[in-house]
């Protein structure tokens, strides 16, 4: 294919479809659906559809001050790094077909790294905004990061071991090819769900910005445009996390592959939306039915319960692999 066409489709992918524009709209929609379902679960009315957009625009209009004690360069740069990481991660996750916009052997590791960028941007932003409460909030963010990152990687590697590839597209194709693997990978899916909930700092793991405790978390000194970007990062991270989970564990655009041509692509997108919304709904129900844990309980649960489950899952996948290859009967 000619270079110009490559560049055009690359830019199109980056700026429009699975990239910026789509994620911006889908991120805000996901936030609306999350807040609405959460409200309905609590017998509340919930926000109007355009509320997240209104919040975003309002924050853009507000003054974005830099606190005196802050280290300005890092304080200002923090929101952008998280957002950039999350947007680029989306490019490596299959959406309309089993192949993502860009795919290469090992892009699963890239996606996992890019998905942890927002937590680091939160840490740097909070630590360098010169406020003792945000510092305590950031130490909790990092403690929580140590808690959920290991189980998250282990859970993500389970399907990689099963599929024998480190490419999300390859994994999605493999699971699409043998759908019964979705059942095999269910424990890893559970671990990944809880880790994603912790990564997004949502109840029961919203300890770093627990509203009723010490004070708010790392973002206490942020306002205006920068705060809007941080909130957008969290919305998009929710969507990208759900997309990654549906690609790794639910077989990406599984049933859509049967249709050929553009109908298949369209069906792929519809299936993608359905699966990601299902994952987001699961996270919302989880958020509605439990209380917030303390930081040491969170770390305790992740290391004492989730890491063993993830390890057992990888053992199970290995056993199933050997069994299907006929090595053991």
């Amino acid at each position: 294919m000619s270079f110009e066409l490559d560049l055009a489709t690359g830019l199109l992918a980056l700026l429009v479809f699975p990239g910026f524009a789509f994620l911006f709209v889908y991120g805000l929609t996901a936030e609306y659906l999350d807040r609405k379902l959460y409200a309905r679960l609590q017998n509340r009315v919930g926000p109007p559809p355009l509320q997240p957009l209104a919040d975003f625009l309002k924050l853009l209009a507000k003054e974005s001050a830099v606190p005196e004690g802050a280290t300005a360069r890092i304080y200002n740069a923090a929101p952008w790094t998280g957002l950039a990481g999350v947007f680029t991660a989306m490019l490596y996750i299959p959406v309309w077909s089993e192949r993502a916009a860009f795919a290469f052997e090992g892009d699963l590791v890239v996606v996992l790294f890019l998905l942890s960028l927002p937590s680091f941007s939160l840490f740097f932003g909070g630590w360098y905004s010169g406020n003792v409460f945000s510092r305590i909030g950031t130490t909790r963010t990092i403690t929580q990061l140590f808690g959920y990152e290991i189980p998250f990687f282990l859970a993500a590697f389970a399907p990689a071991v099963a599929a024998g590839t480190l490419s999300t597209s390859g994994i999605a194709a493999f699971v699409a090819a043998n759908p019964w693997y979705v059942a095999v990978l269910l424990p890893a899916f559970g671990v990944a769900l809880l880790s994603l909930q912790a990564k997004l700092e949502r109840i029961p793991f919203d300890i770093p910005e627990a509203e009723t405790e010490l004070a708010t978390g790392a973002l206490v000194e942020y306002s205006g445009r920068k705060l809007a970007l941080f909130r957008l990062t969290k919305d998009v991270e929710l969507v990208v996390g759900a997309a990654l989970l549906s690609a790794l564990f639910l077989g990406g655009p599984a049933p859509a592959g049967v249709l050929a041509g553009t109908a298949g692509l369209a069906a792929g997108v519809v299936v993608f939306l359905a699966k990601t919304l299902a994952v987001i709904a699961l996270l919302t129900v989880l958020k509605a039915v439990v209380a917030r844990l303390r930081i040491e309980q969170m770390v305790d649960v992740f290391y004492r319960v989730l890491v063993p489950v993830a390890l057992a899952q990888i053992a199970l996948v290995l056993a199933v692999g050997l069994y299907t290859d006929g090595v053991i009967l």
Partner: protein
Amino acid sequence: MSIPGKLVPEALKTLGKDNATVSYPKDKRTMPDRFRGAVEFEPEPCTGCGMCERHCAADAITVEADADGNVTWSYDVAKCMFCGQCEESCPTDAIVMGKEFELAASDKPSFEESYTFTR
């Protein structure tokens, strides 16, 4: 250690329930008939005895009678705490607790009302 999530059945059931809240001011609740809103005063039966003023803990009512017998009864809804003691203490039932509860106003003087009559 039991599995968290005891509330899941209840939460899912709540999805079906209709709103617990009323979207005021579009549709307003009807106040129960014993509801105590702003005081409504009927000058006709009033004898100017001042019992309401004496028993009003919030000093919201003032009753003045001048030499030649005309009485001014004045009431400040901003001070009133709607306890209903004036209605109870009034020997001639000239005071009744109304149903009006939307009492916000932007000009302070509009809170006061007064009646002048001769006895």
